[in-house]
């Protein structure tokens, strides 16, 4: 079935219809979380720590509670204490005790902006004023801001109970985990190397930067049931995590996913949701909380800053022989950086016989990190892809050819061991090589071109879908995956393809946690792959049932009914082929309504690769970098809606360029975030980017009925290294720290000039 479906040309898949939710979103009618309001609704605000690291001695709320208009004030003591162990929650393993302590600090604040108390009042302004009246006594502790400080012997301890296997059960530590991956014999490997490059890289903590701040409306009913309206990447994960944090039965919470204004991983966990329910429970009113931008930056999941030491060796002919990597990622105030993913992605595109990777998850007094688009992979690729570029230079081999020569293909072992099945890495490099951009000549002083590649696993997980056939022959499609960028359109296209309907005859509906089977979070680039699979199977289920109805009408056996190009057919006279529309009108008299259903726990997910090409111009007097041209090639398996696939590729590239040039968390020596506004957290504007060219590569994922690969993440992985490589070729300095901001690049440029001048002087003597 899958095979034949792949073989045949598609009618809907691969076209570019207008998205079904489009009109609502261009007219301002689409309802995002903050757009919800209810009669009697109160407004909540959260008091946040002004210190990076401190014990909470006491919290006095009486003055705040006495302010006219204030209806409730809550602190951590209003939430149940939870077990200090990892539990499965959707795609994530989560420590509920730490999750709760992140939502409202328990006895200790671990970063500037850590939530301490929450207020509900009749207006947001009154709630804000009430925060000023809450008296918190802090015992300020020295902040630990970098992995280096945190790993030093005798460093201040963030979490007294934290232990790791290496250091044993008696040793307090800031290192939550040490992971190691090993293959072959490192010494043997490096013996065979003609060229070795070893460098240390640092990347800054950066934020997902979604334009919509976090929000939640909680409505608690006296019968113990609650409804949460919020913008999230996963309504079911909000339900299970909120239930745990509130100590409520999961079934007593219904989560209604609002439209979501961007997530990029940052909305796969919870912050405000349990607070809205608890405040609603205390006041008997619906309570809405929305974060300010400063709260978003100070207290919601950025991704880790990191230190990565990368040593790689290759033979004269360019063959990679060995790699040794040491990496430590900032987890934030609680464990859980994406260092594991970093370790398993850093050399994933290459076949390297001898390998050793040591990876450390380290707590520091910064916000608890959350998932961010290919978590951990961009940090890692900044290191490996720069070193690869340098090795290619040393060998005098074109950087694309170098990657192709060493590129992973079917059967190549992955970092953690399992062999790749069919993948499209080399195809992405070839696509770049044959792109108009690569073939074009780059002229002008201080200009350079750089290439880099990236890998991301993608995930499968669970999804559910229902396809209802209506009497007019249209269909409604019900899914639990939120629409974060064309999801409705892509899923409707899959259903329309299978049902032989026009895409506009399928109405996609994203529904709440009570109206569809379990559906895991929109993350890991899984939605088109896994929810798409469920939608495909649900539509097939509907077709099967429709065949039975046709069989009844024609007095034949179901297996005698064919379905092709939207037409039901059978051999024999008196059989006039029927479309779904025609058959739909006969459902009542042939057995009643039809709903196709399917659920999946998708296995055999196909990983994604991308290769990015960037041209830059450097202002040698100021160190400012202009991006002149950018092209990204990505293996997407099969593009359902090419426009939205390109959109993911372009968006990830833009974010990666932001990391490369300007984005960073800037903390002062007290651990206070100095750039908690979009004025100084510098994401690229329209004027900072060129048009971004795309090459869609389609190497189908084996086993998937349509061959889809997730497309949401991998395009963010190559850009930082691609820009660094371009800068190196433009002005001859290798940048090893992100962001490559003007002050940093200028310093490197002046340093280089200084040294060359002294060399010249020496030569002159």
């Amino acid at each position, binding site marked *: 079935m899958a095979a034949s479906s792949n073989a045949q040309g598609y009618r809907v898949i691969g076209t570019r219809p207008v998205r079904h939710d489009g009109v609502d979103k261009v007219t301002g009618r689409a309802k995002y979380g903050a757009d919800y309001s209810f009669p009697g609704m109160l407004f909540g605000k959260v008091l946040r720590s002004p210190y990076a690291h401190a014990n909470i001695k006491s919290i006095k709320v009486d003055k705040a509670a006495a302010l006219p208009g204030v209806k409730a004030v809550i602190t951590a003591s209003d939430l149940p204490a939870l077990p200090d162990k*990892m*539990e499965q929650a959707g795609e994530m*393993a989560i420590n509920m005790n730490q999750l709760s302590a992140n939502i409202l600090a328990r006895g200790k604040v671990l970063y500037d902006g850590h939530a301490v108390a929450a207020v509900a009042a009749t207006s947001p302004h009154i709630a804000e004023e009430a925060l000023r009246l809450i008296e918190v006594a802090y015992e300020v502790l020295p902040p630990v801001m970098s992995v280096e400080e945190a790993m030093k012997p005798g460093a201040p301890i963030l979490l007294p109970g934290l232990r790791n*296997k290496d250091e044993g059960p008696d040793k307090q530590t800031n290192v939550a985990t040490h992971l190691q991956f090993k293959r072959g014999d490192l010494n043997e490997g490096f013996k065979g190397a003609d060229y070795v490059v070893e460098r240390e890289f640092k990347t800054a903590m950066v934020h*997902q930067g979604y334009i919509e701040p976090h929000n939640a409306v909680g409505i608690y009913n006296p019968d113990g049931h609650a409804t949460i309206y919020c913008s999230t990447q996963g309504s079911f994960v909000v339900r299970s995590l909120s239930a745990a944090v509130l100590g409520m039965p999961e079934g007593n919470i219904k989560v209604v996913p609002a439209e979501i204004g961007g997530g990029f991983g940052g909305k796969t966990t919870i912050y405000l949701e349990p607070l809205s329910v608890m405040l609603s429970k205390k006041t008997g009113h619906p309570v809405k909380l929305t974060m300010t931008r400063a709260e978003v930056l100070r207290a919601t999941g950025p991704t880790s800053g990191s230190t990565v030491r990368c040593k790689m060796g290759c033979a004269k002919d360019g063959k990679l022989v060995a790699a040794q990597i040491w990496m430590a990622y900032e987890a934030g105030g609680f464990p859980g950086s994406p260092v594991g993913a970093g370790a398993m992605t850093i050399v994933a595109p290459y076949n390297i016989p001898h390998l050793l990777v040591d990876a450390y998850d380290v707590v520091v007094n910064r916000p608890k990190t959350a998932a961010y688009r290919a978590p951990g992979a961009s940090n890692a690729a900044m290191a490996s892809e720069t070193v690869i570029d340098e090795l290619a230079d040393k060998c005098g081999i074109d950087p694309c050819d170098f990657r192709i020569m060493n590129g992973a293909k079917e059967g190549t072992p992955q970092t953690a*061991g*399992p062999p790749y099945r069919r993948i499209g890495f080399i195809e992405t490099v070839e696509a770049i090589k044959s792109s108009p951009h690569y073939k074009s000549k780059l002229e002008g002083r201080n200009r350079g071109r750089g290439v880099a590649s990236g890998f991301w696993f993608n995930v499968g*997980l669970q999804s559910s879908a229902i396809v209802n056939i209506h009497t007019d022959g249209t269909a409604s499609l019900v899914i639990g995956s939120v629409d974060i960028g064309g999801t409705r359109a892509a899923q409707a296209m899959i259903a329309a393809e299978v049902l032989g309907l026009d895409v506009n005859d399928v109405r996609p509906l994203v529904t709440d946690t009570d109206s569809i089977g379990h559906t895991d979070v929109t993350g890991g680039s899984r939605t088109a792959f896994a929810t798409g699979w469920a939608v495909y199977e649900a539509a097939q289920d509907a077709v099967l049932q429709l065949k039975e109805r046709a069989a009844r009408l024609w007095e034949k056996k179901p297996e005698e009914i064919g379905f092709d190009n939207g037409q039901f057919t059978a051999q024999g006279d008196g059989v006039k082929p029927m479309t779904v529309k025609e058959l739909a009108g006969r459902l009542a008299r042939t057995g009643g309504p039809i709903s196709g259903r399917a659920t999946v*726990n998708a296995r055999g997910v196909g990983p994604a690769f991308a290769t990015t090409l960037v041209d830059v111009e450097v202002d040698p007097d100021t160190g400012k970098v202009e991006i002149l041209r950018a092209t990204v090639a990505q293996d997407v398996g099969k593009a359902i809606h090419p426009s939205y696939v390109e959109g993911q590729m372009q968006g990830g590239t833009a974010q990666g360029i932001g990391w490369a040039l300007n984005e960073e968390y800037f903390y002062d020596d007290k651990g206070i975030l100095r750039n908690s506004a979009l004025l100084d957290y510098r994401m690229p504007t329209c004027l900072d980017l060129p048009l971004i060219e795309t090459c869609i590569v389609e190497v189908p994922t084996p086993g998937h009925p349509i061959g889809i690969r997730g497309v949401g993440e991998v395009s963010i992985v190559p850009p930082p290294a691609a820009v660094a490589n371009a800068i190196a070729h433009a002005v001859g300095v290798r940048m090893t720290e992100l962001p490559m901001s003007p002050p940093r690049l200028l310093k490197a440029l002046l340093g280089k000039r200084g040294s060359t001048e002294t060399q010249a002087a020496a030569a002159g003597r």
Partner: protein
Amino acid sequence: MATVVIPAQLRKLTGGKDRVTASGRNIGRLIEDLERQFPGFGEQLLQDGDVKPSIAVSIDGEMGTGGILEPVGENSEVFFLPALGGG
């Protein structure tokens, strides 16, 4: 017998061996057999009677989904690796 590839940090349990053989029709049984051969293996991989949330299982190059009930073939190649999520 299935081949089990041992993560670097568990090789101390297998006397440094990075590949061992074990039998069992599913991951649960396989881990029981590993525990028999290399005491201590179970607690490294199991929590509350199932595979730890922080651990993923790959069988013949395919990421599994069924925890201890994940079927294992006669000549399967089995990997235990860190579970991870995406953005």
